[in-house]
């Protein structure tokens, strides 16, 4: 339904989106996940024809958005990050205007307004001015607007941003209900949203796709081990050495060090709980165990891992040794002896 091939978008010298390609099948719900400024909104704006791509081809329902923009736009519904509403119109007036410019037939307009108002639960505020509605209602009016011409493709930019938890759940249910009839692309920087509403996820960072797959696939791919965090007061190198020898432990990484306290991240074999062993090892050696907790790799961590990959690798390589002091490296051979 949507084909994006080699999309690149530059704003002057800044590269907002760089060589992004993906496809969305009919009836699928695709989630764009990425931190703010990753290029989600830009990508969506190009798909909807609001911005022209610098390079690449984008087809919506078989129509190229650059060569046949009107045909493509006729089949696209778009809810930008801030709902594009006119505050001094009533909900009905607004939907009637949108229906007209989206090319809904004169006779169908009334029927369509009723249908989308009901679907988006704005029927009870139809006669009120949009400017006087709450944020939640305004968002729903925005969604109603995107649906009014019954488009094949729905592009929703952060549809749940700024809503309260109840509204968020309602909106998600609504979006789920749209899957199947409509092809939906939505963006978010909130992780649970993706696992709850999307069948497929594209993780975008600094204008590039860094991962894609179903939410489950992503979790499995990256979570190959159990993680335990523990903070101990004592000699860092010795502690590390001792922890390393606990059965089931694969890797011990120092995370933070303050005064004589060190926090370690311990990776253990999958499915093995090494907490009791670790605690015993520390206490036996008369060090002070300050904190011990498991840290399961949630979607949140995956997200951070993917989007801050460069950063974390660099910091692991450079920052930490210097933060811990080079004494760690100097002492570790000594403790082996």
């Amino acid at each position, binding site marked *: 339904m949507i084909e994006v091939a080699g999309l690149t978008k530059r704003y002057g010298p800044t590269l907002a989106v760089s060589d992004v390609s993906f496809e969305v099948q009919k009836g699928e719900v695709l989630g764009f996940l990425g931190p703010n400024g990753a290029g989600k909104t830009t990508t969506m704006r190009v798909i909807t024809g*609001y*911005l022209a791509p610098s390079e690449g081809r984008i087809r919506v329902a078989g129509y190229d958005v650059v060569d046949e923009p009107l045909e493509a736009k006729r089949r696209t519904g778009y809810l930008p*990050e801030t709902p*594009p509403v*006119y505050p001094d119109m009533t909900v009905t007036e607004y939907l009637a205007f949108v229906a007209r*410019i989206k090319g809904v037939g004169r006779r169908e307009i009334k029927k369509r307004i009723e249908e989308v108002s009901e679907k988006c639960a704005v029927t009870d505020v139809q006669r009120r001015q949009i400017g006087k509605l709450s944020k939640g209602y305004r968002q729903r009016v925005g969604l109603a607007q995107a649906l009014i011409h019954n488009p094949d493709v729905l592009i929703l930019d952060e549809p749940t941003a700024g809503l309260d938890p109840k509204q968020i759940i309602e909106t998600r249910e609504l979006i789920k209900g749209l899957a199947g009839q409509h092809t939906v692309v939505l963006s978010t920087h909130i992780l649970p949203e993706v696992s709850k509403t999307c069948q497929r996820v594209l993780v975008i960072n600094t204008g590039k796709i860094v991962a894609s797959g179903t939410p489950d696939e992503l979790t499995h791919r990256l979570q190959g081990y159990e993680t335990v965090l523990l903070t101990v007061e004592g000699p860092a190198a010795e502690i590390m050495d001792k922890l390393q020898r606990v059965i089931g432990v694969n890797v011990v990484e120092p995370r933070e060090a303050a005064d004589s306290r060190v926090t370690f991240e311990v990776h253990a074999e999958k499915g093995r709980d090494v907490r009791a062993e670790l605690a015993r090892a520390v206490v036996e050696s008369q060090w002070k165990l300050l904190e011990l907790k498991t840290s399961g790799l949630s979607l949140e961590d995956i997200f951070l891992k993917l989007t801050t990959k460069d950063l974390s690798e660099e910091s692991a390589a450079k920052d930490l040794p210097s933060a811990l002091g080079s004494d760690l490296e100097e002492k570790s051979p000594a403790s082996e002896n």
Partner: protein
Amino acid sequence: MRNVFAVAGKELRAYFHSPIAYLVMTVYAGLCGFFFYSFTATYVMQSFRMQAMGGMGAPPMSLNEYIIRPLLAGVLTVVLLLLVPLITMRLYAEEKRSGTIELLMTSPLTDLQIILGKFLGALALYAVLIAVTFFYIGILFVYGNPNAKPLLAQILGLLVYGAALLALGMWFSTLTKNQIVAGVIAFAVFLLLFVLDWVTAYSTGTAGRVISYMSLTTHFDNFAKGVIDLSDVVFYFSVTFMGIFLTARSVEALKGRA
């Protein structure tokens, strides 16, 4: 065409849903009424004086020459010059600020349909102002008998004059997200184009004539007299097309940036 009218209707409704239309109409009706009164009062005084001086045989002073023409050419063109920025400043700036421009530009409308719709909406409000003017002039017909023929040229003149200003003002509105900035730019440019005529009042060289030609208000003089000169119509139409063309270029440029 249906799309153009949809946008035009939306614009016109927006004017009347906000204080802008009422503010502009009140200011205009007030100023128009004041000047109409002062020209009429002067006319009455002078015609009394003429009669007192014994000019009984002389033809009565023309209402067209002493009231309508100075009212339109001398005063109202300047008043409109100052009010048109209030009408045009919101056209694009407001949509850019509120994000509704995304709705328009992702709808199956061509840029030109949006531009013409906005232009027609603004022109409709402007036409209401012109109607106010002719309400005042109508009073003259009740109490006197001015010549009605020049009115046609005057109405046409005010419309093409306004169209040119509106098109330019619309262009300025595409340049910024801030309505006030758009309004001030339009105001400054209009004022400059108006005073160009003063600057060149005493110069007779070619440069002087070219600059004088560019003045927005000089081309109105013939219309005010009741004369439709094709070159004046062409001038205002050219400015209108230029404004619309520049608006289109500017909207096109929005797609490249953001």
